């Protein structure tokens, strides 16, 4: 239910704001890349090729470091060989320590980030919004209970709670067949895409409170609106009032929060996989963790490239959120974080 006015606001805000345009371009770009990853990626992101490891991105010539250990005279001798390596046009963003193509890994990493961001947010919203609406609408003990529970829940930082839960529950990964590969449209690409199931559930569980809070606040103010009273006076049941009046009028800030949450959850996911609490290795955070070991030896791009990818996609989502907020509903900045 989007009124003409909302659309007009969106349009005028979009026209006047260059940042809104940039945001849309970035988000659409990331979504397209993630969906059509097998077509975009030049190589199989998991294919190792030690012969082509540590290639720098195009335009750079860097040193490659190979360490060999041999038994010599009963002692272990470690030799480090350094050689100059030119960039290779086949790997425009270079390769990692195992010779996997960085560009392909970044492309597939977008899938993970986006899947976790969107599904985690949906999960959080599906739990949080109904609870918040009901608590705010009926108030009373239910509401008190929810708010106290929310207080307790907020006392644990999302990241800490998430790693604790993942630590307890284990890292469950759900392999999903890639339809493009199954259909035979592309070859040489991973047949399955690994969905980090625990991560999605956990980020949803640690972030639903934000949705509950927003939905509650909206319901709390909407329940005293005269049109809600008018509807009650016509004989509408509470259920009908919530469905027909409260939810549609609360949806705008929920959508804005949703975009903020997608950004927050993408960051959270990258943190989790950086710390090794993800179910998949095709993730930007995981690659940064890998690349971290190479910084001191000069292979700066392995950690840098996936980080830039995170930054650009989060900037895109944030800009989109700013655009929505400015156009739809000012004044909920700052709610919802990692």
């Amino acid at each position: 239910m989007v009124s003409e006015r909302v659309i007009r606001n969106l349009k005028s805000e979009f026209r006047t704001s260059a940042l809104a345009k940039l945001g849309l371009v970035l988000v659409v770009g990331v979504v397209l890349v993630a969906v059509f990853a097998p077509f975009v990626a030049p190589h199989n992101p998991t294919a190792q090729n030690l012969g082509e490891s540590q290639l720098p991105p195009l335009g750079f010539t860097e040193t490659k470091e190979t360490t060999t250990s041999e038994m010599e005279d009963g002692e272990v001798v470690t030799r480090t060989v350094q050689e100059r390596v030119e960039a290779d046009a086949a790997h425009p963003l270079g390769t990692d320590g195992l010779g996997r193509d960085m560009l392909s890994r970044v492309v597939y990493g977008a899938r993970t980030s986006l899947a976790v961001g969107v599904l985690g947010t949906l999960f959080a919203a599906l739990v949080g919004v109904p609870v918040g609406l009901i608590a705010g609408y009926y108030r009373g003990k239910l509401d008190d209970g929810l708010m106290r529970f929310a207080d307790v829940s907020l006392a644990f930082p999302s990241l800490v709670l998430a790693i604790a839960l993942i630590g307890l529950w284990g890292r469950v990964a759900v392999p999903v067949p890639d339809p493009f590969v199954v259909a035979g449209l592309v070859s040489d690409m991973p047949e399955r895409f690994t969905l980090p199931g625990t991560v999605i559930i956990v980020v949803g569980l640690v972030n639903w409170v934000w949705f509950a809070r927003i939905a509650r606040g909206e319901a709390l103010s909407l329940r005293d609106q005269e049109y809600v009273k008018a509807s009650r006076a016509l004989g509408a049941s509470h259920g009908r009032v919530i469905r027909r009046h409260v939810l549609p009028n609360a949806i705008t800030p929920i959508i804005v929060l949703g975009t903020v949450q997608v950004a927050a959850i993408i960051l959270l996911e990258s943190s989790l996989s950086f710390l090794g609490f993800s179910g998949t290795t095709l993730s930007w955070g995981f690659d940064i963790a890998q690349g971290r070991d190479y910084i001191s030896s000069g292979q700066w791009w392995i950690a840098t490239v996936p980080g830039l990818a995170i930054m650009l996609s989060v900037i895109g989502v944030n800009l989109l959120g700013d655009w929505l907020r400015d156009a739809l509903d000012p004044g909920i900045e700052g709610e919802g974080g990692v």
Partner: protein
Amino acid sequence: MTDADDGAPVETVGRREARSGGGGAPDEPLVRVRGLRKYYYEDDSLLDRLLGREPTSVKAVDGVDLDVRRGETLGVVGESGCGKSTAGETLLRLREATDGTVEFDGEDVMAMSDEELTRFRRRAGIVFQDPFSSLDPRMTVGDIVIEGLAIHDEPADPPADGRSKREWRRDRAAELLERVGLSADQIDRYPHEFSGGQRQRVGIARALALDPEFVVLDEPVSALDVSVQAQILNLLGDLQEEFGLTYLFIAHDLSVVRHICDRVAVMYLGEIVESGPTDAIFESPKHPYTEALLEAVPRASVEEQGRRVDALSGDVPSPRDPPSGCHFRTRCPEVIQPPTIDIPQEQYRGVMDLRDRLEREGFSAESVWETLASEHAGDDEFERDPVAFKETLREEFDLHGLTGATMDTVEDALEILVNGREGEAADRLRDAFTSPCEEEEPILTGETHAVSCHLHADEDYDVDLDPEDVGTAMGGMAGMPDGARNSDEGDGSAAPTGPEDR
């Protein structure tokens, strides 16, 4: 019951005349409210109880009796916070009452089951004040108007002419929009595309869609400009005539009430202080509050220029802690003196104001000193001068010219106050100046024109030990309409407990 009317897509125009008097006996009121109370409780959480705090009750509506007769417009008028809107919503059971009964056409609304309540909702509607927040911004005006029909799944059977229920409802919405002065082709527009007056018309159409008999109009024109307000008032009058509607008209604007209402009830701090036929209320008000309200309204005519109003002093007290006895006594210019006291009314008012500030508003002697000090700012020589202190208070509370024993008492209290013992000063004054108005709650008394005021009670509270002096003391008051002082006549026979219409 109106079941005969429901269901079939009957054209509404002109079929309502027969209804007035339809359900019960014609002289029975359609709505009868008795002892309606609505309290809100604050500081009522577990935590507050742990902290040993008593829950505070906000007495929004505190014992209201009303009869709304078929086909009439009963006005409920009062200032903001007097509980008039809460009363309107509570009697429709949009809020749960704390106490009291509401009978609608003989049925007890408070005791209705869900099913009965659903039936009741069809017969009683409401129009709200704010034309902006009373329409859901996400719905078209067409959907808003027919929301009631959708809720009650009306028509019950598919229309005979082959239209779908949906089409039938849409046609009905168009018809209603036309009736309230909008055009049917605006049916798919959203509320924000309309002006305030047009939105209020939509709100009226929504209330009419279910063919109600009774409509609560909660300040329906307060948010509108005068030119548009007049349009809506005319429309409401026309609709009432056409559909035989019964109105409960809640308003703060006395001119509007006078224009549209048949009878009026005046509310103050959750209670009805006066009720009666509109002309009686406006032409010979009995309650000092009603008088003051009428006095205060600015008239739009040249004669108004420079008119100095005897404004009521002070603010309305908080409904968390309403004054004892008569709620109005803290502002009443005619508060009754105890038999032992006989001083000019302004001075008695002054003494009562001083008491009130001491007892209810946390007045502190220190504040007077500070104020005095601020007048002598920069004057290092300034010292606390008890004479100046007392003079300030005499000035503020109009205590000059007291004589004899009363003067001694007041001076005594001032002396105590100079020494910073506020509580003791209050006690001193209370002992001597307790008014009958604060000891006993007045009861709404009278046949058609009822008033809740000790001045008009059966029992004569306004006695004096020396009757000779009463006349001179009270006669000194200026600007008092003649009928106001001695209008007990004709009310003596009414039972003290009953409201009007027994």
